[in-house]
């Protein structure tokens, strides 16, 4: 396919039918979508995103949160924060949405083979990292230890609670969860996600870290990863900016010299480090 044809293809949404809408928290839902024509799709790389189009309302960039091995099925976890996301999470089973994608560059799962995989997530940032967890647990012998540090605002805001408990039972896997503010009934850890590092059994020299969450959280986490002894080249971040075309034409998602939609959303920390400290960028 020519570049022009490929670009045109990426601009045309494909119809997907909503198979299920699962409630994760009071405002966050996971939509399971299947191609309306029942056909296959080309799969996706962990960390890629889709543009989801609610007809008559708008189009949104949403990370793919499902299992990369589940062909013909796309899961997206969406937090309802505005009219478009509200419309999206209110789709019912059987309704149709438009899907462009998968788009962007994902997590370096190939480069992580043979190494310990350290995932650090804040809030809904766990969603784009969940495909990495599926990938590592499915191909357990290809990777070293899996360490997941996950922080949410409160116990009510924790995503995938049953899965977190199930993942924690897997071999060579350490799942650490914290909340910023806990009620008296919460028996888990309380504190920001960086406070979990003291409990993580890390081997920095053989680890590769993937981080996703609010930008302020990623600033604190990258500092902590360096403090722990991870090399900057071994740290990857998933960035978020306002996306429109999602193929690098419109410039809405420009971040320094990069377009987040096309050059990311996953970036090596070393590549964007200088831009993370720019005020108001």
């Amino acid at each position, binding site marked *: 396919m020519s570049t022009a044809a490929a670009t045109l293809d990426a601009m045309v949404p494909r119809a997907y039918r909503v198979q299920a809408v699962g409630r994760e928290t009071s405002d966050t839902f996971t939509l399971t979508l299947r191609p309306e024509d029942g056909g296959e799709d080309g799969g996706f790389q962990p960390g890629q995103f889709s543009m989801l189009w609610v007809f008559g309302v708008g189009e949104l960039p949403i990370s793919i949160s499902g299992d990369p091995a589940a062909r013909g099925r796309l899961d997206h976890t969406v937090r309802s924060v505005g009219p478009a996301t509200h419309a999206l999470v209110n789709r019912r089973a059987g309704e149709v949405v438009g899907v462009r994608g998968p788009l962007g560059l994902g997590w370096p799962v190939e480069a992580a083979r043979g190494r310990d995989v350290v995932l650090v997530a804040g809030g809904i940032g766990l969603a784009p990292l969940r495909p990495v967890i599926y990938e590592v647990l499915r191909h357990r012998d290809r990777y070293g230890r899996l360490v997941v540090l996950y922080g949410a605002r409160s116990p009510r805001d924790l995503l995938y609670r049953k899965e977190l408990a199930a993942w924690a039972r897997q071999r060579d896997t350490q799942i650490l969860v914290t909340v910023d503010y*806990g009620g008296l009934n919460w028996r888990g850890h309380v*504190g920001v996600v*960086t406070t979990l590092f003291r*409990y993580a059994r890390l081997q920095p020299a053989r680890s590769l870290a993937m981080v996703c969450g609010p930008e302020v*959280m990623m600033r604190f986490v990258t500092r902590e990863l360096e403090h722990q002894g991870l090399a900057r080249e071994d740290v990857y971040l998933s960035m978020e900016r306002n996306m429109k075309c999602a193929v690098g034409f419109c410039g809405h998602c420009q971040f320094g010299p990069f377009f987040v939609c096309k050059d990311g959303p996953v970036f090596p920390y070393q590549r964007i480090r200088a831009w993370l400290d720019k005020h108001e960028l």
Partner: protein
Amino acid sequence: METLERVIAEHPFFAGLESYYLGLLVGCASNVRFAAGTYIFREGGEANAFYLIRAGKVALEVFAPQRKPIIVSTMGEGEILGWSWLLPPYHWRFHARVVEGTRAFALDGKCLRQKCDQNHDLGYELLKRFAQVIERQLVAAHYQLVDLAAQP
């Protein structure tokens, strides 16, 4: 059986401390246990100790008018609990509630303050170590604050 001196010497908080100073510290240390649901200290109470947590979990709570206390952080194995013993007026700023049965070494603050007054080198070594604990918790508090301010 592990001696008190050996366990304290192996704790990362005291890494690099000369054995002479360790000996001074051990004179102020004791083994303590707290059952789940009890309080190690309460806000406003006299602060006359700090704790090296060996096992268990402790929640730091803040009193909030007209509502239940809020847990602002939890601490577990290997962590240092309490620095109010170090600075006047020596009053605790939080409640410390035991979430899971906890074993710790308690270091008597009055005893330590006296030894630090007599031996400023020991005081300097302790202050350096506590400054790191305070800095870590201050950074975490800043992060928590910025995170709160950034909420949509």
